[in-house]
């Protein structure tokens, strides 16, 4: 009875809100011809976002894995350093990190690639979040599994490879997929160092045409076709790695 009431309530509220917002957005009087000449800008911006996000995503998994290793290390110094890195990165604004990275740190080592610095800062930022997700996954594997692996004669590395990681992957997938979607959207902040990604192109089109909605609306579709496949992939991987408890 309660289940049924909840189902009806959720369907009604979500369905109605969805229809309402869609109707409001669709019934606006748009002037698409104003932004039509700029389609190349959108396309190149979207492509830039795709490239930098894809590269940062791969790098962030690496950063996350290293930080997880550091946090779970039996030695104190890597543990403290990894912990500090995670706390500082997660506790401070990405915008500031990008500015410091590009205008202070990169020049100090003679590096001036906007793309490269942007990618690295994004990877570190997202990697810090992933590290916490991964650590939670590893720590959620019951002690009995570690003990059993030990009794069998597995080394530490074999225990991770055959026992802990295969089970942890299933548990960290949903949260990681969310973090990957965040990373793609967070890449829009790279406008502060003039990386010509998708959002920056939209801002420029807006500045040139004053057609605000027309300039920003394509972002919805552009970002969604990047983030939705990640969500789908995560679901299918969850199934592949699933097992009964």
């Amino acid at each position: 009875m309660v289940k049924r009431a909840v189902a009806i309530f959720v369907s009604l509220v979500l369905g109605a809100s969805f229809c309402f917002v869609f109707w409001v957005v669709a019934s606006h009087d748009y002037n698409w011809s104003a932004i039509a000449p700029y389609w190349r800008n959108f396309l190149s911006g979207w492509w830039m976002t795709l490239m930098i996000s894809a590269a940062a995503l791969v790098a962030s998994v690496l950063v996350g894995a290293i930080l997880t290793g550091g946090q779970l290390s039996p030695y104190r110094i890597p543990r403290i350093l990894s912990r500090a890195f995670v706390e500082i990165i997660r506790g401070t604004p990405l915008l500031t990190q990008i500015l410091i990275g590009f205008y202070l740190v990169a020049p100090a080592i003679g590096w001036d690639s906007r793309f490269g610095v942007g990618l690295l800062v994004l990877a570190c930022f997202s990697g810090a979040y992933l590290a916490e997700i991964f650590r939670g996954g590893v720590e959620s594997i019951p002690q009995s599994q570690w003990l059993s692996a030990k009794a069998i004669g597995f080394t530490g590395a074999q225990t991770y490879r055959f026992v802990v990681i295969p089970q942890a992957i299933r548990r960290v997938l949903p949260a990681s997929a969310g973090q990957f979607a965040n990373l793609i959207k967070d890449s829009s902040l790279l406008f502060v160092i003039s990386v010509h990604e998708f959002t920056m192109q939209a801002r420029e089109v807006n500045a040139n045409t004053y057609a605000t909605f027309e300039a920003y609306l394509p972002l919805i579709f552009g970002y969604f076709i990047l983030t939705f496949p990640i969500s789908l992939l995560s679901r299918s991987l969850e199934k592949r790695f699933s097992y009964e408890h």
Partner: protein
Amino acid sequence: MSIEAKALSRFYGSTRAVDGVSLSLSDDVQVLALIGPSGGGKSTFLRLLGGLEAPTSGSLCIDGENLSTDELLLREWRKKNGFLFQSFNLFPHLSARENIVLPLVEVHDWLRSDAEQRADEVIDRFGLSAHSKKQPGQLSGGQQQRIALARAIAHEPRWLLLDEPTSALDPEMKAEVLDLIQELCESGQKIVLSTHEMGFARGAADHVVFLAQGQKVEEGDAEALFAGAETGEVRNFLAKVMKW
């Protein structure tokens, strides 16, 4: 197996899980049972024997080999044993068969084809062929424990360490597992087990050690100890647990 334990201890902080246990067993003991109240040190003692824990102090020598505290040597020690836990501890993401194959391939360096053949052999011997492709979550507790037992003996361990192998099972499944252990005893497998199944300990074990509060209270030939324990504590314990 011959066991020489001298003042063997394992402390966790201020908890003295095993507190100065000495034991000397000759090679003609084939099945050793550890009995006593819960929290008395049976599991920890078994883990010390199996090299899963390094002793806080004291020494342990089995079949003339000293237990080291070096992790590399401890792992070599563990590889020679078969360990079975109370709560099965199979790997839930692998099939029953793969649970047996993986350690043979990765720890004991068998060829995969040989390992698979061996796994099928032990699974068949334990009457579980129909379940070999299932994951542990799809098996009953008794079936899981039998697979775990198959995994523990697949590499023909020098001895089998069983930590309350039937405590988590209902009576019917208990019987399934105890039958198998009995069969292993009869086939000459050397076994150390901690158990609350006094009937089984009495029937299957050659030698019994009673542990309480981390210390050895009494030990002796199984039949003799069950027939008439020397200490009041053991007599009381046996009278209580065997009453029902």
